[in-house]
């Protein structure tokens, strides 16, 4: 029986395993050094915040794996020998495979800052990071201040986590406004305000110079490069992005760049070796996506796709239209299609913000054809299927605005702002768009 070995028990590897099991009777082994069972990495923050226990982050009960004949092996892969199709583990044992899926995810970036490996300095990615944080920042008495370096999604989540335990946080962001490489000005400014209103000491446009240690080798303070200011702290969170976790592959025959190089079929340069999820790097980027995408759902889709390929139905990975979501303290964010931080030459923008400053939408469309390109919505939920359909059918911005009621996904009885939004658009663009009533027929005829 063919033996499929998957390195990594995150969303990509586990999805691949589940779908291979659905499609075939092959022997499946998942290897992980992190945890015994699959858990949702994105939910680690809620464990620290006390919303959930760690067991709640596990989407499948523990009996699930045995019942579905998916072997779980705990171990750290030291090297891969592709000629003999063998994995070597740190403990000295080894494992043969017929087909190998590399799904090892990411690791937090460290940019060679002095003191970056001190006690009390951590990323926020692995389960071990959570345990480490629990040790160094159990409460505001032990941890009098924490400094977070890096203004991305993990950084703001870490800020929210520490804030939930009333630990004062200084948040160093290199950019002039939070996440402004991704978010346009209006949205970015909104999140700046949200961060500050939660009592976070937000420092924009600053870099970390070094982390200083006390006599026990534990972090004592940090120095800001631009001002030379020293901020004493007990914990430093390094959240300046992530990169593929592929250190152990570097010496193998498998071609790597920043990640494991794959084609659109998720195949590496070595036959029977595949790479999926955060650690995979597309040789040729798909549409306007980045070659490496550390996003939950792309990992899941790659897992589904590679399972098809491995089960003799070779298909190309096509992630479809870009979408994503996040939550910044109390502000939910969703995006469908592309809304770049800076508009491209052919693009026009429409921005609406609620007077409370906590809700907005930002629509991107083509100036000439009026084709809808993308939307950012903050504090308002939108229907994924609606926008997927709009993008498939290349509908115009006018169509989208007319049908905003179909698109809304807020809970029942929520106040809706479609009329305000449309009248603002009409006023700015000299149009006469009328809002159509929500129609189940349209919603389902997609």
């Amino acid at each position, binding site marked *: 029986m063919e033996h499929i070995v998957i390195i990594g028990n995150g969303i990509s590897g586990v999805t691949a395993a589940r779908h291979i099991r659905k499609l075939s009777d092959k022997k499946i082994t998942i290897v992980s050094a992190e945890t015994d069972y699959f858990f949702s990495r994105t939910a680690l923050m809620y464990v620290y915040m006390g919303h959930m226990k760690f067991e709640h982050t596990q989407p499948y009960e523990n009996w699930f794996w045995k019942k579905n004949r998916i072997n779980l092996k705990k171990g750290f892969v030291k090297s891969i020998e592709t000629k003999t199709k063998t994995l070597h583990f740190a403990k000295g044992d080894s494992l043969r495979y017929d087909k190998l899926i590399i799904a090892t995810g990411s690791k937090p970036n460290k940019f060679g800052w002095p003191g970056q490996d001190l006690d009390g300095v951590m990323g926020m990615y692995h389960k071990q990071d959570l345990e480490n944080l629990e040790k160094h920042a159990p409460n505001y008495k032990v941890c009098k201040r924490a400094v977070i370096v890096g203004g991305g999604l993990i950084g703001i989540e870490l800020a929210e986590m520490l804030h939930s335990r009333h630990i004062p946080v200084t948040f160093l962001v290199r950019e002039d406004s939070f996440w402004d490489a991704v978010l346009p000005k209006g949205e970015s400014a909104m999140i700046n305000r949200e961060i500050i209103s939660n009592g976070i000491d937000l420092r924009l446009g600053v870099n970390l110079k070094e982390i200083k240690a006390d006599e026990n080798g534990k972090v004592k303070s940090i120095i800001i490069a631009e001002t030379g200011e020293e901020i004493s702290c007990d914990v430093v969170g390094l959240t300046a992005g992530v990169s593929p976790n592929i250190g152990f592959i570097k010496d193998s025959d498998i071609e790597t760049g920043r990640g494991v190089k794959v084609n659109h079929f998720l195949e590496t340069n070595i036959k029977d070796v595949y790479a999926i999820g955060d650690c995979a790097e597309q040789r040729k980027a798909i549409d306007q996506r980045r070659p490496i995408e550390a996003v939950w759902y792309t990992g899941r889709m790659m897992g589904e796709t590679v399972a098809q390929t491995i089960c003799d139905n070779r298909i190309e990975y*096509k992630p479809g239209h870009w979408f994503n979501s996040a939550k910044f303290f109390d502000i939910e964010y969703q995006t469908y299609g592309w809304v770049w931080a800076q508009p491209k030459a052919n693009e026009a923008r429409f921005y609406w913000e609620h007077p409370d400053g906590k809700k907005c939408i930002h629509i991107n469309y083509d100036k000439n054809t009026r084709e809808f390109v993308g939307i950012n919505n903050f504090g308002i939920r939108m229907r994924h299927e609606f926008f997927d359909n709009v993008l498939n059918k290349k509908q115009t911005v006018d169509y989208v605005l007319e049908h905003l009621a179909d698109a809304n996904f807020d*809970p029942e009885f929520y106040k809706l702002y479609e009329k305000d939004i449309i009248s603002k658009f009409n006023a700015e663009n000299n149009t006469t768009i009328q809002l159509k009533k929500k129609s189940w027929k349209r919603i389902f005829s997609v």
Partner: protein
Amino acid sequence: MKTLQNIGLSLFLIGLAIFTSLIFLGKYEVTPELFDNIISDKGIKSELFINDIKNNVVGKEFTNPFSFSSSITTALETANAAHKQNNEWDKVIWTKPHSFSYEIAKSAGNGTIKEHKGLFWWLTFGLGIIGALLYVIPNVIILGPPGIKNNGVWFNAATNRSWIGWFAFVFLVGFYIILYFRPDYIVNWTYIVDPISKNISGNLASQWFLYGFLYSTVMIVMGIRMYIKYRHNKYQMIRTTSVLFFQIVFAFLIPEILVRFEKPWYDFKNAFPLDYDFFYSWNLDQLIASGGLGLFILIWGIVLSLVIVPVMVYFFGKRWYCSWVCGCGGLSETLGDPYRHLSDKSVKSWKLERWLIHSVLIFVLIMTGFTLYSYFSGAEAILGIKTQTIQDVYGFLIGALFAGVIGTGFYPIFGNRVWCRFGCPLAAYMGLVQRFKSRFRITTNGGQCISCGNCSTYCEMGIDVRAYAQKGENIVRASCVGCGICSAVCPRGVLKLENGPEIERIHPNDILLGNDVNLMDLVNQK
């Protein structure tokens, strides 16, 4: 703010302590005149009982309700046993011993509490309400800006099955056991609500009036907590208002006012089979004897269960009842909200749930079948089983133990919907409609789910919502009461409670939306 909360907590605990200690206070003395009244009112013919009480109770002062209760109930049981042996059926006293003892104690009690009802109301209910509000209201500021704030829920000994949770469990279970089975211990509690009862129904308070009043009070106070916690979520605000309205007006005020006008006590929203004694002969007789209103209630009760309930479930899901109207649901959604995450999400408990709840439904239908057959045919037993016996078993096991003691008592350990999930026959009935013939579903928003598990964790019905959401499948489950909290706690805007067309209700997307259309077609064809 924290200080204010601590003061509130202290006041609440003092109020609770006084309330609890009231059981042990007060004196009970049956005077000869009182006893003569009881004998004539109740038409007691048992000379054994009369002599026993005259010798051992009348003229004596009891300083606690336990010895008083024991003297009365022993006398009653001994007398009954003797009469039954001698086939002197007309002398047997059929009232339940502790209910009988309650009625005597209610008149026989005296002392400070009975003399200072208002004062003691303030020392118990008053302190409790003020304390609880002082604890709850500062959360407007403490919890921070509006939004989901479940911070520390699993670190708090009250809400993570730790010692406070177990203490609350023991307290609640104890409370319900006394309420259902030893009402004669709590006459002192009923004294303090006598003035309120007098004002509404014109009668002195029974233990059920006390319970209704306490229930409504707790719901209002904890409803205020809900208003604060979910102030950003209009669905929760309106829903909370709805359950409070139906509890206060329909379950508490209207029935008591009906009594004032000498009409039968009836809760218009309490539908059979949750209202399991609706078809009992005493109820039918009473309704038929109550003229136009009685007849209306009789027809309303039948139409409610057979027409209104299923039609509403078809259009809105069973949530219209369970988390908008129902009293049990109302308590769960207010007092029980801090415990919602304690429900068990395992497949095993889902299996247990289906066995239990449908068994109860079958049980209540059989019991009602017996009841109606007996009512119309006059037969006391069918196939050798007495209707009375099966009614008693149901009333004890399901009506009292399951719905009361377990249903609410287990909140702090097994979550706030134990009864609704495992026991309520009405929920089972509506669940069948909801599962197979309804427009209600929880829509999953395409591929946005990140499997974080907040939805499953905070589902009070123990539904593993995430299992559906991460597959891109809508949630159509018999047990869902539509509380809307999964949607509220979702950080990615994935879930929405909706009433839509029946076609495409589950809308499974095996491979997720966002995957290229070709791939979706391909996989869906396979």
